[in-house]
């Protein structure tokens, strides 16, 4: 039976080794998860750039960067938008953290993490906190229309072993 939009495989669970990936972070640069080994990483999969400004998940995380930095954590936004689109979006919103393009093959990394919406063709609003050893420590799937905020992320970062 064909999958209905949004009825997708489950998110990768805590305790799972986070699959490595390499994605474009700008049109001419790539970033690998393994480049960040030894530091906590927050992966924020989101449906698309350019959602309404004041309720935008990436704009919120941008303001929360000093709090993430207190935990030595790097946050990465991931959507299926292309690197040029991310570039324009980041400039327009004054974003100071990387947005990765899960663009080709489309949604491949999101699919690996169980965070892709088959049929819709974009990422879930799915969050992962990865510990210093590259293991998933926490995950969260938010309804697609609801920005999950930063409370769960901050709580998960606070519970990581120092």
């Amino acid at each position, binding site marked *: 039976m064909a999958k209905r939009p949004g009825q997708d495989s489950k998110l990768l669970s805590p305790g799972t080794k986070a699959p490595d990936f390499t994605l474009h972070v700008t049109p001419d640069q790539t970033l690998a998860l393994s480049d960040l080994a030894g530091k906590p990483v927050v992966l924020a999969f989101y449906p698309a750039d350019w959602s309404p400004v004041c309720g935008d998940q990436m704009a919120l995380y941008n*303001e929360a960067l000093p709090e993430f930095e207190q935990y030595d954590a790097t946050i990465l936004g991931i959507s299926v938008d292309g690197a040029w689109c991310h570039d324009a979006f980041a400039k327009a919103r004054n974003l100071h953290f990387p947005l990765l393009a899960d663009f080709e093959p489309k949604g491949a990394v999101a699919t690996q993490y169980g965070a892709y919406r088959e049929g819709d063709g974009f990422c879930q609003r799915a969050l992962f906190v990865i510990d210093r050893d590259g293991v998933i420590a926490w995950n969260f799937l938010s309804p697609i229309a609801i920005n999950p905020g*930063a409370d769960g992320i901050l709580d998960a970062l606070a519970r990581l072993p120092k």
Partner: protein
Amino acid sequence: MSTLQVPVTDADYIEGDPDAPVTLVEYADYECPYCGAAYSVIKRVQKHFGKRLRFVFRNFPLTQIHPEAENAAEIAEFAGAHGRFWEMHDALFENQEALGPALYVSLAKTLGLSAEALEEALEHRTFRPKIRSDFMGGLKSGVNGTPTFFINGRRHDAGNEYEDLVTAIDAELATEARRSSATR
């Protein structure tokens, strides 16, 4: 579900009856157009519920997309330190399209506040720690954009129009009524 992590205390700016059965907390940004729209909605909601509702305002400036949001928040806190918080809060939202130094000086004068003291507070960023603390408390409570409302401590995700808030507050009043009759 996201819940308010920082309880309402005397340190908050509160409008309405302290014994009201429902408390509406708003995290907002003076430059955010959605907060500007919510400002007049809240006035109507307050009028509708009267003594059954108290309202609390907390700062959540999105400084990277709203260049005047932090200054405006500091101005309101400055006025608050001189006992004029709500007048300034209202005036800032009512003049949202004109946020900037000229407006701040003019509003300070209207409220009988010293323009020099205001300038000094801005220069020394006197109220930034308070605003940052509001912001942090909001982040930890699950504020996910502006405005974000909490009704008796639970995040309200069901829309920010007048009808949405009235419906949610009515439901909370009904719950509170059942709770107090059960404990009687």
